[in-house]
């Protein structure tokens, strides 16, 4: 078996003496979808932010393709192939939909100075249009992103995370606030990205049917620690998980 794409070992993070994440181990294999669930305040987002360089972990290490990437800043991690979305919607409202995507890809190739003299689309237009088609946003390509509906902005937000063809994407509540009709779209899109295009991702989500339907494996966090890891069926049947989170 080859080395896992992402390997997290003994990761801990405290805020003023409160352990938000405590000695967490997990791995993500290439092509896998890992669901991350747990009650509010269980440390899911803190764990994400430690992996993604938004926060510096107190202890532990993060390896990408066997290389130590612990403590690198978000820009460096993005350029090494980790994409992400945030819990709250984060697009650039004044930029057009296509420009949002071009921006998400433009810094991954060439040099800083070179980009000043590149064509305005930075050679990203074809890739951007490909994603616009896939996410069914093509007819809105030239609209300012801020004029889109919430659900459409959410799709754009996810598309941006995949723009630079990252090896791994961490999605923080992709279904949050999305209406039920669009929820199915998001789910089928993510499944297609995984099955047809081989995308690997970790997804934090509170919507159980969404995350159970999408994930190959699910990891449950509670009070900053890994409570259980297993297939969606195993997790649904796990007594500890039911007590801590799923309820009856």
């Amino acid at each position, binding site marked *: 078996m080859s080395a896992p794409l992402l390997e997290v070992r003994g990761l801990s993070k405290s805020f003023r003496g409160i352990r938000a994440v405590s000695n967490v181990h997990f791995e993500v294999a290439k092509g896998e979808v890992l669901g991350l669930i747990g009650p509010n305040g269980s440390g899911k987002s803190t764990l994400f932010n430690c992996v993604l360089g938004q926060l510096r972990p107190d202890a532990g290490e993060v390896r990408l393709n066997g290389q130590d990437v612990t403590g690198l800043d*978000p820009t460096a991690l*993005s*350029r090494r192939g980790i994409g992400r979305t945030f819990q709250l919607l984060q697009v650039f409202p004044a*930029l057009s939909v296509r420009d949002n995507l071009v921006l998400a890809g*433009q810094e991954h190739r060439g040099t*800083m100075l070179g980009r000043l003299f590149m064509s*305005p689309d930075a050679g990203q237009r074809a890739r951007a249009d490909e994603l616009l088609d896939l996410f069914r946003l093509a007819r809105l390509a030239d609209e300012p992103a801020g004029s889109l509906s919430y659900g459409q902005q959410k799709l754009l937000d996810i598309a941006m995370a995949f723009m630079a063809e990252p090896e791994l994407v961490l999605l923080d509540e992709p279904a949050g606030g999305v209406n039920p009709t669009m929820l199915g779209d998001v789910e089928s899109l993510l499944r297609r990205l995984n099955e047809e295009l081989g995308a690997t991702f970790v997804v934090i989500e509170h919507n159980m049917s969404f995350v159970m339907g999408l994930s190959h494996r699910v990891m449950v966090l509670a009070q900053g620690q890994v409570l259980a890891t297993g297939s969606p069926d195993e997790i649904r049947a796990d007594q500890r998980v039911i007590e801590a989170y799923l309820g009856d």
Partner: protein
Amino acid sequence: MGTMRWIAGGIFLALLVLLPRELKPYGIFLMSNWVLFCVVAMGLNLTLGYAGQISIAQAGFLGVGAYTTAILTTRFGWDFWLTLPVATGLSFLLGLIVGFPALRVQHHYLAFVTLGFNILIYLVFRNEDWLTGGAFGIFDIPRPGFLGVDMRDPLSFYYLCLVFAALMFAAAWWIVRSPWGRAFAALRENPVRAASLGVDIRTYTLLAFAIGSAFAGLTGAFYASLLEFIDPYPFALEYSLSFLLMVISGGSATLIGPIVGAGMVLLLPEWLRFAKDYYLLIYALLVMVLMAFCPEGMVGLWRRMVAAIGRRRARAPTERPT
């Protein structure tokens, strides 16, 4: 709309070329001053309008360029043109330094840091007599030589300033439409998200300051030559506020906003002379009304009018994204 824009641009350019021929030397001086201040405001517009980094030090940077050229030409006998790279480089470097605090603080905190920097520069100009001539300033700054044309003639020098401003406008246009322009907009709108997409926020922030400052510094060289005499006062804090007003009242993050704004800030007081002592009062009221009812500035006001006319013409229900 596209052709309309070209026609409007053509008429504007023709006016810029032909109008000064009908003016007295003072009018030509004012227009020269205006085209130069357009460039200074364009620079600030890159920093503030496009990249969203507030800076209240633009007059200081203008002064750095002006003093560099003044000192090098009068004391060391340098040719005007040779001072340009030095004036640009020095202001670029100082802009870079002022950019560093922006990596830590934003908004009104950043405003105070840059404001403090302007005061610092001003004090150097005023108090370091050995270098800057102190409050007495520097006299006899030469006009540049250019293909044997006598630049002491106000009209000739005006045309030189106009060509310079046109080149700088082209440079600003190029930067804004390049991938850098997009990265600056991302920096303005959401730096955290931009960083997560691989945008090097640190470098772009510093660049936004350095480029905006270099626009002012390079213009300073021409400004010193236009005035032929400089003292510290045009580079004081209140003039930085004027440049800020130019960008905002014209329309920030638009290419022509600074041109309109510089015209308003510089020429309106001249036109309001008839009001004598009341001109500042009228001027201040006009600015307040504009900012209260159209915070996007004159360009924003124009766009709103065009949109309103367009709606009235169309009448048909427009398709809206659902």
